[in-house]
């Protein structure tokens, strides 16, 4: 601990408080000398000179500590040295037995100044060390007399060092926290602004290029296709992904839509309900993986140009994901045949995942009319799921 400290703006009020404390303490020390402890001084003139030095040093440190860059080890060290020096001067100014009669050192409460400064600048440990140094000098001045009162002062000083140091650190942490929050907010606002800009211009142009390119044909069609891909990618980046920013809600569920929508490409259409589809994170990940596996399968077996549609339905108790393609379809019996001959492939990776979640996967195909994979994930594991109407 120590050096990374409280240099943020959060410590500024503390420095001002230290300045106020020191001025008040100089006043108190002068009052003690003038009215209360006057008779205890063998050299009152020199004692007044010490008070004058205290006042001058208070002005110097107040100006010095006013700016963060001037709160150097040098100044803080000098502060401690000057204070200790003035404290020790008591020995030659007062009658030897003055403390027995309850007189305070000439610096009185003013000696706590550097302890506070060290604690605020360098934290708890430095505050404790400064307090110990000042306390030792105080004991030397007391010369063993009036030990009880001196001990009381020492404990107060030590506690001050520890607590103010702790307080300064807390303030610094709160300040850092606040700074981070401000940064996050600024970043998200900037992202929102960028998203709006991109939406208003770049996406529109990309969509236009895609459309015109497709019509022009030839090389332009390729450009249009690329523009379309970029449009989809950009849109996923600025449009959907952060609407709910994949943060789990209070129940720990995630919006499954945000995990499926990125699967959208120029040949894959993803359709979802308007409301969030809340699913447990682990189940959502598995369901997404199963959907990806089904889409990969379409690409591998039916070619890059095959179109595919993904439909997400949120029914009471069940989340249903349907993946359909317009490829050649799977000849009857091929799947069973593949499984029987040990080539598990699609049925394994998809059905297996769903079975583990307590759900089911149904694969149906009409040769020439494409394949349909239906994934059902029950909300509560173990509840059997009936096939939806419209499943072939």
């Amino acid at each position, binding site marked *: 601990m120590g050096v990374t400290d409280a240099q943020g703006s959060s410590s500024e009020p503390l420095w001002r408080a230290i300045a106020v404390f020191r001025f008040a303490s100089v006043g108190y020390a002068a009052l003690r000398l003038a009215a209360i402890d006057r008779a205890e001084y063998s050299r009152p003139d020199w004692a007044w000179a010490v008070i004058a030095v205290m006042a001058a040093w208070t002005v110097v440190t107040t100006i010095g500590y006013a700016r963060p860059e001037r709160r150097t080890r040098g100044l803080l060290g000098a502060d401690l040295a000057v204070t200790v020096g003035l404290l020790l001067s008591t020995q030659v100014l007062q009658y030897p037995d003055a403390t027995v009669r309850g007189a305070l050192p000439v610096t009185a409460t003013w000696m706590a100044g550097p302890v506070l400064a060290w604690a605020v600048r360098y934290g708890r440990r430095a505050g404790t060390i400064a307090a110990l140094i000042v306390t030792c000098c105080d004991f030397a001045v007391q010369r063993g007399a009036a030990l009880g009162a001196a001990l009381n002062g020492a404990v107060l000083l030590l506690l001050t060092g520890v607590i103010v140091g702790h307080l300064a650190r807390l303030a610094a942490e709160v300040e850092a926290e606040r700074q981070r929050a401000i940064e996050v907010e600024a970043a998200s606002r900037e992202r929102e602004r960028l998203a709006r800009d991109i939406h208003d211009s770049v996406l529109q142009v990309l969509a236009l290029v895609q459309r015109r390119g497709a019509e022009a044909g030839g090389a332009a069609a390729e450009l249009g296709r690329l523009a379309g891909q970029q449009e989809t990618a950009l849109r996923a980046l600025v449009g959907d992904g952060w609407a709910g920013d994949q943060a789990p809600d209070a129940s720990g569920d995630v919006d499954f839509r945000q995990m499926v929508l990125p699967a959208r490409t120029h040949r894959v259409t993803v359709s979802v*309900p308007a409301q969030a589809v809340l699913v447990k994170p682990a189940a959502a990940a598995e369901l997404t993986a199963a959907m990806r596996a089904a889409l990969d399968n379409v690409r591998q077996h039916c070619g890059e140009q095959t179109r595919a549609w993904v439909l997400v*339905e949120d029914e009471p108790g069940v989340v249903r994901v349907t993946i359909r393609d317009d490829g050649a379809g799977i000849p009857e019996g091929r799947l069973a045949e593949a499984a029987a001959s040990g080539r598990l492939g699609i049925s394994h990776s998809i059905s297996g995942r769903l079975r583990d979640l307590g759900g089911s996967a149904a694969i149906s195909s009409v040769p020439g009319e494409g394949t349909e994979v239906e994934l059902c994930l029950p909300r509560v594991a173990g509840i059997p799921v009936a096939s939806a109407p419209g499943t072939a």
Partner: protein
Amino acid sequence: MSENAPIRVMVVDDHPMWRDAVARDLTEAGYDVVATAADGAQALRVAGAARPDVVVLDLQLPDMSGVEVTRGLHATHSAVRVLVLSASGEQQDVLDAVKAGAVGYLLKSAARPEFLDAVRRTADGDAVFTPGLAALVLGEFRRLSAVPAGPGSDAPQLSQREIEVLRMVATGMSYKQIAARLVLSHRTVQNHVQNTLGKLQLHNRVELVRYALEHGLAGESGAGESA
């Protein structure tokens, strides 16, 4: 719709490049682009005089939501049909606009023939159902039926056949494919789709009126959102 007179279309989009491209496509294909507008207020101002058959409406306008524009258009010019042309990722906005009376929804990246066909079908009074819209409508009916029934609640229900048809539309099947699969006529499939939209819009109007009565707003128009 008269077979001879060209279909009158108004294009509402705040992006000039898009607006011009869409208007040009429509003009080249023989449609009569009677007006264009860059924002909702302008669209509502112009629509009364221009009397378009079809309004091609971008959902993201600088001044008004798609719902407000759709509702406003119907108020000024009740025969108008609204075709929503939107970027993706605006599911709730699209659904709200459809409930407010829009009869079709097309992605902005749709190819030109698909777009021109959608405008023609909208003018003919057919609902233009993309897979995305079908999923939204399915989801909305499920949401409505899941809401606990309140006093006098009349959440609309889809018939099994309607659910079946919508699921097929949502997984990319054409009306023709659906008709063949279910052994129905093309027209019947179209009617089923149309009915789902009609039920949703009727329910929305009933809800709006109920909301207005409950809150003492009867007589005022555009009495808020009850989605």
